[in-house]
């Protein structure tokens, strides 16, 4: 579960990124965070992954209060959250395999298990057999799939995707969003930041609307 209560975030340069933001996303739910550029979507994700700390307010992720979390515990929080970025954030000098395997290497998983899991994850995102390719040899959509494979390889309970279809055409965007829906169907909590209204209609999930750092509408989630 992700729960934000009256969260404010002001950057050191004085920029107020979020003002009094409150919402929650239940375990196994899929929700979209809508808003134009500069609305505060990326800041929201940075707060949920403890890249940034809120100026005030409370953030609970998987029953952990991030405001009280010790710095040494943050890596373990991040292992429970898979993050996907618009710019993919891949290591361009490493193979697809190395990129996807990174979260497993970090937790010290044995090599055999890593190979098995990487193959399975790449197969899931439709990139089976591309293990040894370098990211530069892949299209934008394929690079995004590598990013997704890396985000899910560690079987996280939460997936955060920050504008995952920002640079993709409609057809590829749909494919990527369908992958997220598939993960959601097996119980993963998915929160996607987007400004693509078409996906709202397609996916039909709850939306949280952010404008200039404030929530303008966040329908309460359906209980039961």
């Amino acid at each position: 579960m992700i729960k934000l209560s009256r969260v404010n975030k002001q950057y050191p340069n004085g920029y107020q990124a979020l003002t009094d933001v409150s919402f929650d996303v239940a375990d196994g739910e899929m929700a979209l965070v809508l808003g134009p550029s500069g609305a505060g979507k990326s800041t929201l994700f940075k707060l949920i992954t403890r890249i940034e700390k809120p100026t005030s307010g409370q953030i609970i992720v998987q029953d952990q209060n991030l405001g009280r979390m010790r710095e040494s515990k943050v890596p373990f929080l991040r292992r429970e959250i898979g993050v996907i970025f618009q710019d993919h954030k891949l290591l361009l000098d490493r193979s697809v395999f190395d990129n996807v395997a990174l979260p497993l290497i970090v937790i010290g998983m044995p090599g055999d298990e890593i190979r098995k899991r990487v193959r399975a994850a790449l197969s899931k995102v439709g990139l089976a057999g591309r293990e040894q390719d370098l990211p530069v040899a892949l299209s934008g959509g394929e690079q995004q799939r590598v990013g997704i494979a890396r985000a899910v390889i560690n079987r996280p309970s939460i997936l955060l995707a920050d504008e995952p279809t920002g640079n993709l055409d409609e057809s590829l965007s749909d494919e990527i969003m369908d992958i997220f829906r598939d993960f959601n169907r097996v119980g993963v909590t998915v929160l996607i930041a987007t400004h693509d209204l078409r996906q709202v209609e397609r996916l039909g999930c709850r939306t949280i609307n952010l404008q200039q750092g404030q929530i303008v509408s966040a329908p309460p989630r359906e209980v039961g």
Partner: protein
Amino acid sequence: MVTYLTRHLQVMLSALGAMQRNPAISLNTIIIVAVTLLLPLYLYIAVQSGQQLSDSWQGRPQISIFLETEVADREAALIYDEIRLHPAVELAELISPSQAMVEFRALSDLGEQLDLLPDNPLPFSIVAMPHSGHASREHLQRVEQELQKIDGIDAVRLDLAWTDRFNALLALVTQVATVLSALLVVGLIFIIGNTIRLLILNRRAEIEITKLVGATDSFVRRPFLYYGALFGLFGGLLCLALLGATALWLQPFIDQLAASYQGSARLYQLDMADIATIVLIAIAIGWLAARWSVARHLQQIRPN
């Protein structure tokens, strides 16, 4: 455990690979480490070689006893017996005036002038070597005073002043070497630390992503600590190679110098313990430098 060790091995091999991919930075750092370590090691070897020389003198201290010129053969033999049986004396040798003259003639260039002398002016002398238990300065001075009281003895020479001066010089060089080594270690830590900083900056994107997927600080730090340790290891090995080459080159000059003093001298030879210590110190310096640099720069890199 096996997985843990395998990961360490992989990180070390990956650090080696990264060093190979940045040959200019790596080689520069290794050469700087080697050359910087050389200077205190030269001083260490100089001090150890001097110590060897000094030990060889102090291990066999000699007391030169000169009898009065009018002492005859029989009386000289009695004095010799008395000295030989002295509890502090282990060995003693009686040198007759004629033996002394032969030796003096050989050591000096005064052959013809000596021939002009009407008779041999040199007295009987005795060279005594004390027991090792009486080789300290205090014991030797006490023995000197006791021997001085024996009838027929003109002078007793216990020439420790030169070795004292030499030892004082060695002590000074040791102090200079210690201070210099400490300063050079600090310098090395800055140099290796700066190289590690460059490597950290080169891998900034990778560090950011690795932290984002849940890497702990120790995981991110590990490859850089290996870089530091490997810089130290290779720098230490190169330093030893340069040291060996310098010793080979210098030995003929040292032989030549020693020969002019009718002696022999060898540079202090590093044993396996010395070599292991030097390499371990070099590794420790590299590791420390990396640790310092990582502590300073890694915290500044946060996922974005």
